[in-house]
């Protein structure tokens, strides 16, 4: 034992001696030419690029099409792209410095900008990218990829698609519902109040073994549900990360909305199961409406085609045609000023307002550890080109970040709607701050607490958080929790 202690001491002593040594770099400055030096000159020849795209693009064949087209075009230069074949959650931060990881990656802006913070992805020479041409991409969607480094604003990713919750439903389910304003969206999906009343009725008319839900959505999901708080005045960070605006304004009304929504769902509302089964359930009619991001459009579509072919015994082509027509995407419903979904709306303009939701932009970035940055840039330029983005939109249903692609013939009709929301400021872009982890963690458990309180504890109505005061206390406590958890990690 003594020997062991001696060994430990011997090991620790030099550690203590050297603690605090070592020079620290950081805060370097450089000229734009120095930053972009890696992109100067002829592209590398005879190289293979490992490209990491997301699972949907790979499953749906879009990605194969993309690298196929790229390889065909650049075969004469000896540049080849291939599937990195990694998990889409591969951590560049961890693998990159040790020589593993993709050359080009596709991810959400918050993730890519976290990489950018510690130099894991390259700053991109936007003048060499077609997507950054005059009027091609809105500044609202390039902004999230911008960071001040080396004393200048640099772009670290090329935006491809805009993400923010939209509402999915089937046209024929609501065929009998009124559409007073004639915009194609049934009235029951125009406001959350109408949707609440509708859901209550649907739920009451279904059986225990075969439940049907009007509105169905996982209420524990921070990303999708923070919008309710945002709409009533909450914000994530103010001027600094120590200013947490969770309890700002009337954000407790946002929790009220969540409670009311929980009361028309079941106990699974506080788990991910609503998200997981959304595709099949919208197709089968178990869910009448749900909200999620546009990039999973194709999953709803596939599930619907599958149902038509398997259950309704339709021909494949007819099933696809019917699914295209039947699957609808609309704006998220409007919220009541009062925060009470049980209230009957008589005047939509004064009693409700347009909902603000969280959002983000997915795009391509180039790993700093790639051996062939110039070839990577060619790939990124190709993948963010008009033709490919339009293809991505038609094959996967994404909302293109490029304006020209969003307005192109054949692109989803809802792209315009999403774009409007971005322009109207109704999409709060995901901040790329590390401290966000702490916020999301606490918000997630708060949402679960509120939901469980309704679905399980209160059997349909709030029990612990029945009063406004209790909700305000909960919000204040959550802010405290976040601050506690950020104390050191920020």
């Amino acid at each position, binding site marked *: 034992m003594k020997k062991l202690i001696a060994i430990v001491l011997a090991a620790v002593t030099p550690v203590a001696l050297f603690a605090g040594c070592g020079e620290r770099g950081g805060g370097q400055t450089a000229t734009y030419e120095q930053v972009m030096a890696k992109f100067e000159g002829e592209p590398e020849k005879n190289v293979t690029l490992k490209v990491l795209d997301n*699972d949907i693009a*790979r*499953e749906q064949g879009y990605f194969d099409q993309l690298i196929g087209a790229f390889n065909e075009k650049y075969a004469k230069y000896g540049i080849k792209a291939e599937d990195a*074949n*990694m*998990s889409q*959650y*591969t951590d560049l931060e*961890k*693998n990159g410095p*040790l*020589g*593993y990881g993709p050359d080009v990656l596709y991810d959400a802006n918050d993730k890519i900008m976290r990489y950018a913070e510690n130099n894991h992805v390259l700053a991109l020479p936007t003048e060499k990218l077609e997507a950054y041409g005059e009027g091609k991409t809105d500044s609202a969607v390039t902004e999230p990829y911008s960071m001040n480094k080396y004393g200048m604003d640099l772009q670290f990713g090329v935006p491809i698609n805009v993400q923010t919750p939209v509402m999915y439903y089937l046209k024929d389910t609501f065929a009998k519902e009124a559409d007073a304003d004639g915009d194609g969206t049934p009235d029951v999906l125009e406001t959350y109040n109408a949707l609440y009343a509708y859901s209550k009725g649907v739920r009451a008319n279904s059986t225990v*073994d075969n439940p049907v839900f009007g509105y169905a959505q996982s209420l524990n999901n921070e990303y999708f549900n923070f919008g309710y708080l945002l709409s009533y005045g909450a914000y994530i960070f103010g001027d600094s990360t120590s200013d947490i605006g969770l309890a700002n304004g009337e954000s407790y009304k946002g929790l009220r909305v969540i409670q009311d929504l929980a009361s028309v769902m079941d106990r699974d509302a506080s788990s*991910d*199961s609503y998200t*997981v*089964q959304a*595709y*099949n*359930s919208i197709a089968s009619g178990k869910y009448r409406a749900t909200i999620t991001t546009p990039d999973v459009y194709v999953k709803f579509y596939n599930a619907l085609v599958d149902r038509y072919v398997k259950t309704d015994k339709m021909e494949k082509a007819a099933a696809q045609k019917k699914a295209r027509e039947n699957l609808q995407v609309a704006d998220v419903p409007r919220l009541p000023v009062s925060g009470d979904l049980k209230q009957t709306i008589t005047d939509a303009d004064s009693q409700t307002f347009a909902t603000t939701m969280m959002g983000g932009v997915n795009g391509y970035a180039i790993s700093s550890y790639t051996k062939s940055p110039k070839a990577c840039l060619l790939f990124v330029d190709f993948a963010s080109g008009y033709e490919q983005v339009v293809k991505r939109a038609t094959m996967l249903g994404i909302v293109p970040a490029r304006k020209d692609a969003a307005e192109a013939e054949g692109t989803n009709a809802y792209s315009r709607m999403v774009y409007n929301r971005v322009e109207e400021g109704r999409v709060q872009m995901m901040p790329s701050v590390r401290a966000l982890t702490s916020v999301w963690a606490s918000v997630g458990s708060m949402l679960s607490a509120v939901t469980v309180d309704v679905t399980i504890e209160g059997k349909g109505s709030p029990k612990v958080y029945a009063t406004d005061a209790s909700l305000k206390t909960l919000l204040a406590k959550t802010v405290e929790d976040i601050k506690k958890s950020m104390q050191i990690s920020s």
Partner: protein
Amino acid sequence: MTKSKSIRVKRIADSAWTHIVLLVVAFLFFFPCVWLVISSFSSTGSIYDYVGFFPKGYSFSTWADLFTEKTPSNNYPVWLGNTFYVAILSSIFSTVLVILTAYTMSRFRFKSRKTMMKMTLLFGIFPNFMNMTALFVIMTQLHLFNNLNGLIVLYSCSAPIGYLTQKGFFDTIPNSIYDAARIDGANNLQVFVKMTLPLSKAMIVYTALTSFTFPWSDFILPQMLLGGNKDNYTVAIGLNEMTDDMFSLFAAGSVFIAVPIVLLYFSLAGFLVNGVAAGAVKE
């Protein structure tokens, strides 16, 4: 007369409740396994299309998909091949190393022996993956990251830590057998090859079996060291990444990899009982 009758009644009652309890226990152990088999035949595949314990519809399509589909989330035949490769090679190398270590520790007395025993005991109680960051860095340095061979090396090299069961077995072989051979002029290598190995067949089988099943069903190390390269996945990682709406696929994949283990266990039940008695605990 009445007394013996009451004893008989008592005995029957005793036998009855014993069997009832056994039935319940058997059911508790059996049902989840059966449930998994039933689930693999669910027609929609999603865990949410159930009424209680049972799927709403049945079909064989999952089993067909399991072996024919090739998507990012299902590439079962390749995973199965990887798993076999890792488990078989690890089992061979681990067995050799463990048997050598255990034999040496049991048979020889040398200076650092007690220290080594204490150290291995100390190391042995910590799951290897506790040092996950270190393992990750070491494997990248050795170019064994993202590489099935890296897993084999890791499993085999960590195996000797768990030599105690086997040492316990070698301890029971009396020294007199060795001494007799030594008098005949055999050296220690010859003694080991000609005497010890044939005597320890059962232990070798047991060691091979346990060092096969560990990599076969391990999840943590492959998850850490295969770097998300889906061509390198083992069945355990692949199954664990399946989502709730792929439950029947998960169930089918699980049943399929459980079957060889179950067969092995039943056919080698005798060895197993002895091995367990010698101090094995399921990981």
